[in-house]
């Protein structure tokens, strides 16, 4: 069993779809779902054997490309495959009434998105990371423009142009790294980065920050995000918010920790993240469109994860992993329920929630919102508590205040939404939800509550993952051996 299958199988699936189409209309859908279930099984099998190993491709590192399997990368792989499998399950219910046009292509894009997100997390070669960055980008552009309405195309164009600019800066950074260090392997670069002249170090860091900054949705570079979320369908937004941005966040901080182990720019990144969170929550306050509102909420939460990662110590990274986990699941619930609501009501205004007649959806959305807010007994709580604690330990009281203020602002609009959901007014006829969709929602909500009530189930594992993520020498030892 090797982690290369996470890339090879989706690619094989993508290339072989014309053959699959010969076997009838549903062959693609069921093959894809079956493959994702297999990958899910594979991810948990790999996760249970806890030794860090590498998977060689073509030739051995440091010259060739290889995948590093350790606790932290497999955690994200398992999370992504789990979410993608649930997404497919949801879509199987959704397609009975509202199937996408050209479903084959839709499934190819979904699997490419999954493969590239996993590739970003596993890869240990910076140019290979760029290639996966582009695959993830290009499938996201197409997915956001998929419905070909004018707003979807506008979203796709904005996403594409910003993505193309980001990749120019990323290639520039990789170029400088190769010119000055002479290798593309992350471990070798990590060893050589210390000795570079300060100016070059600064330039490479800024270029990487700009290149990834567009994708991790950080403050001055996130002007496009909200439009993309509003233009795309809410089904796709679940993927953007749950999977893609998490992959970018992980790979960005993975690179930051490897290149700058002593945290020279850490404090700058912390303030950048806190500022982004505040700006996003303030801007979210006035929104009346559900997708736009949750896009701002997504920006805020991602900025919170960014802040936590930027602290660069084990406590904060553990907190970041907690929040990332809770946020992915909660946003999946939110965007998938918006999809269900929109199927009946064909509107994205928050007033729609008043007419919503489905106790199930209301309960599920409430759970997700409470978790996003960080109410005790839900998964979001423990993450927020940990990040505030570790900020207080580092005596960054200013950041603590900013985060609390931003969370309060977030609470205002969540309670407004909850108010809309539970006002007595004329209800429409009952919202029909498919059994498979109910199953998906129940699994997600169950995860949120279980982790909220009993965080000790995964906190030990996340703690270990956080230490692994911060431990450069272990990574270098795994990748290129001890020399």
């Amino acid at each position: 069993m090797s982690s290369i299958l996470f890339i090879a199988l989706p690619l094989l699936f993508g290339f072989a779809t014309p053959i699959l189409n010969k076997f009838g209309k549903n062959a693609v859908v069921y093959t894809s779902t079956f493959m994702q279930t297999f990958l899910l099984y594979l991810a948990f099998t790999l996760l249970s054997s806890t030794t860090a190993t590498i998977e060689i491709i073509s030739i051995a590192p440091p010259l060739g490309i290889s995948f590093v399997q350790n606790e932290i990368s497999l955690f994200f792989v398992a999370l992504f495959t789990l979410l993608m499998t649930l997404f497919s399950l949801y879509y199987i219910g959704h397609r009975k009434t509202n199937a996408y046009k050209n479903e084959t292509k839709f499934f190819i894009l979904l699997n490419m998105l999954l493969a590239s997100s996993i590739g970003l997390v596993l890869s240990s070669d910076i140019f290979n990371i760029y290639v996966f960055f582009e695959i993830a980008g290009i499938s996201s552009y197409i997915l956001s423009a998929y419905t070909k309405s004018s707003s979807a195309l506008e979203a796709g164009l904005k996403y594409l142009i910003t993505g193309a600019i980001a990749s120019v800066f990323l290639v520039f950074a990789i170029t400088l790294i190769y010119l000055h260090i002479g290798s593309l392997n992350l471990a070798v670069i990590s060893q050589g980065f210390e000795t570079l002249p300060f100016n070059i170090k600064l330039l490479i860091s800024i270029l990487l920050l700009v290149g990834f900054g567009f994708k991790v949705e950080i403050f001055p570079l996130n002007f496009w995000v909200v439009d993309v979320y509003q233009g795309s369908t809410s089904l796709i937004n679940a993927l953007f918010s749950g999977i893609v941005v998490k992959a970018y966040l992980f790979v960005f901080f993975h690179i930051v920790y490897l290149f700058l182990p002593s945290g020279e720019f850490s404090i700058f990144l912390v303030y950048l993240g806190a500022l982004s969170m505040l700006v996003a929550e303030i801007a979210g306050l006035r929104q009346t469109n559900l997708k736009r509102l949750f896009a701002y909420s997504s920006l805020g939460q991602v900025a919170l994860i960014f802040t936590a990662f930027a602290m660069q110590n084990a406590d904060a990274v553990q907190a970041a992993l907690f929040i990332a986990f809770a946020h992915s699941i909660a946003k999946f619930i939110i965007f998938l329920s918006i999809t269900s609501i929109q199927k009946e009501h064909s509107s994205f205004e928050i007033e729609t929630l008043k007419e919503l007649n489905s106790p199930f959806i209301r309960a599920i959305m409430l759970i997700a919102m409470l978790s996003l807010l960080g109410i005790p007994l839900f998964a979001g709580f423990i993450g927020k508590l940990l990040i505030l604690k570790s900020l207080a330990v580092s005596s960054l009281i200013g950041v603590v205040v900013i985060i609390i203020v931003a969370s309060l602002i977030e609470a205002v609009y969540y309670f407004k939404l909850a108010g809309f959901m539970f006002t007595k007014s004329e209800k429409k006829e009952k919202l029909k939800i498919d059994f498979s969709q109910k199953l998906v929602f129940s699994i997600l909500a169950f995860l949120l509550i279980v982790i909220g009530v009993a965080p000790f189930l995964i906190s030990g594992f996340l703690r270990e993952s956080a230490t692994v993520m911060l431990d450069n020498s272990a990574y270098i030892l795994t990748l290129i051996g001890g020399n």
Partner: protein
Amino acid sequence: MSIKRTLPTSTISGFTLSAVLILTFLKILLENLPSSIHRAGDELLKLNTQEGVANAVTTVVVYFRGFDTLGEIAVLFIASLGIGLMLSENSQCEIKAESNFMLKTASTLLFPIITLYGVYVMIYGHLSPGGGFQGGVIIASAVLLLLISHKDFEVPHSVIVLLETLAGVSYVLIGLIGLFTLDIFLGNFLPHDVAQMGMLVSGGIIPIIYIIVGVKVGSEMSMIVQNLIKRGENV
């Protein structure tokens, strides 16, 4: 005053912003010109002599960094898919004017020659400059010539899909065979004798993969070009 045209503020601010940025870059870069250090490429050049492939760039593209090439094929595949998705099912926007006799004859005559050149570049990729990407795109440009000059010409869709599928599937399968025989994805499991360097059959899987890449790129690019010109039906 009237002679001097006033520039819009956006132009001036854009100019200033980019100038400041680039001047900073330039200052840092000129102060720290890269010295000739020992790089990974030097090691690869030495390793390349063991693979029996004359063109080191081909070895790096197809074998040492073959995974990037697989990703690149995936990018082209998705882009072609996306373009097909965007431009299909629309009102046809045909080229209206009929091209004249000379152009038609000349392009018909040139088509096999350009295709032959593309195939040459593709097959000799491991011996001389060139390879799958270049050869594939050259073939696509031959198709483009026919598409522009002949109003009714259309690339047979089923053939393209067949080629594309075969090439893509066999690329991944070659990788997986390497995984099962050598325990290394994309490992060179075919014999690659150094003594055969410079011959057409040398280098194990490297020329085979580059030809597959060529077929794949050629069909994807032909599809992209056809979609952009004809906006024909797709899938």
